[in-house]
């Protein structure tokens, strides 16, 4: 397979950040109360991810190793500020409903994780496609979870009433905070089953690396962090 397509496939399916790697759980829980919020968050993260991968990969030989992390953070934070202003200008209602979670894209572990594990070691073009694949994978994940929660919680899809309120009583808890935890819990459980099935088939899925595993191995900041918890179980790293 073409190596660029391979990066896209990797991000969308093989190492999907939401379903397989379980990265970026804070935004996943917080913004998926509706599909449109999930889509908006996913796309803005994608834009930041593509451009941060581009810049970091382009400057990878210039940035000294010792100040790598602060440099990455400045790049990501600048891009997030740009995206925030664009959203405030062109999609003000989406910007209002995502609120503080847009600037918090800075601390999304997907972005620093990809910068650290891929963009800082690979040429520009593959890095762009890596960012695009990961970003779109994240977008698909957030939108699907958003669709699910919106359908159960309000009977709507992208704001259109599909389940008529004449016979359907919305399970409002799904669009509220507890619903986010419940949906994620079920997702983790389902993925545990899928993982086991794939293991039995001899085609193991990539191990989850985010905070969902409760250790620091997959965190994008783990290179500079001195307070690492020793992992209870070894996590495969690239």
């Amino acid at each position, binding site marked *: 397979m073409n190596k660029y397509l391979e990066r896209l496939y990797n991000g969308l399916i093989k190492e999907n950040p939401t379903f397989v790697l379980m990265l970026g759980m*804070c935004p996943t829980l917080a913004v998926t109360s509706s599909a449109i919020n999930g889509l908006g968050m996913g796309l803005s993260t994608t834009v930041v991810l593509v451009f941060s991968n581009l810049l970091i990969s382009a400057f990878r030989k210039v940035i000294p190793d010792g100040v790598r992390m602060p440099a990455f*953070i*400045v790049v990501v934070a600048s891009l997030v500020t740009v995206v925030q202003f664009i959203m405030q200008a062109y999609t003000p209602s989406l910007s209002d409903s995502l609120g503080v979670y847009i600037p*918090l894209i*800075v601390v999304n572990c997907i972005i620093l994780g990809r910068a650290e594990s891929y963009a800082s070691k690979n040429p520009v073009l593959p890095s762009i496609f890596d960012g695009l694949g990961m970003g779109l994978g994240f977008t698909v994940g957030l939108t699907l979870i958003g669709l699910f929660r919106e359908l159960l919680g309000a009977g709507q899809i992208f704001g259109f009433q599909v389940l008529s309120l004449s016979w359907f009583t919305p399970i409002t808890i799904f669009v509220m*905070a507890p619903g986010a935890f419940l949906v994620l819990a079920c997702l983790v459980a389902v993925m545990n089953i899928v993982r086991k099935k794939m293991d039995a088939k001899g085609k193991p899925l990539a191990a989850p690396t985010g*905070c969902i595993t409760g250790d620091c191995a997959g965190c994008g900041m783990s290179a500079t962090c001195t307070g690492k918890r020793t992992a209870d179980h070894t996590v495969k790293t690239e």
Partner: protein
Amino acid sequence: MKELLLIAIGSAIVNNVVLSQFLGICPFLGVSKKTETAAGMGGAVVFVITIASFVTALIYKFILANEYLLRKGIDLTYLQTIVFILVIAALVQFVEMFLKKSMPSLYQSLGVYLPLITTNCAVLGVALTNVTKEYNILESVVNGLATAVGFLIAIVLMAGLREKIEYNDIPKPFQGTAIVLVTACLMSIAFMGFSGMI
């Protein structure tokens, strides 16, 4: 005084940082296996968020939204995300060094958790919320402290529950993180009960 109390109760209990704003999920899931470590983490978060919200509020008021510069037509507030994340990262390192030198006993109990906090989105989240809600410096500190106390409450409660869950017979797929998230869901429902308070 009344406003400060409302801010404190609002951010500590009603809009709990973990259970209703989903900030700081990583340490909430990762460091909540034992009550002692959870309390240590919570203590470190209280320490860092309170200092960080004070420092970021100072920087915002006197540098980014400096009245003199604003009158000259220079608006630096757009730099808030970049400045805050860098200040927080530096601050955590600085607090760690300071504690190591001058308060070794406190460092012993909190030290290991401090670097973990740099990436904790709750710290940045509080700093940004203080700006969006236009809190003054005192209100920012109170909001920061209360938010962090909310985190402490949530993580200690969760650790207590997890110690009990250890002995239960949980369906295989739900073992591990999934049952913790289900517990968080139930805790979140319980905390929703406070929402009529203010």
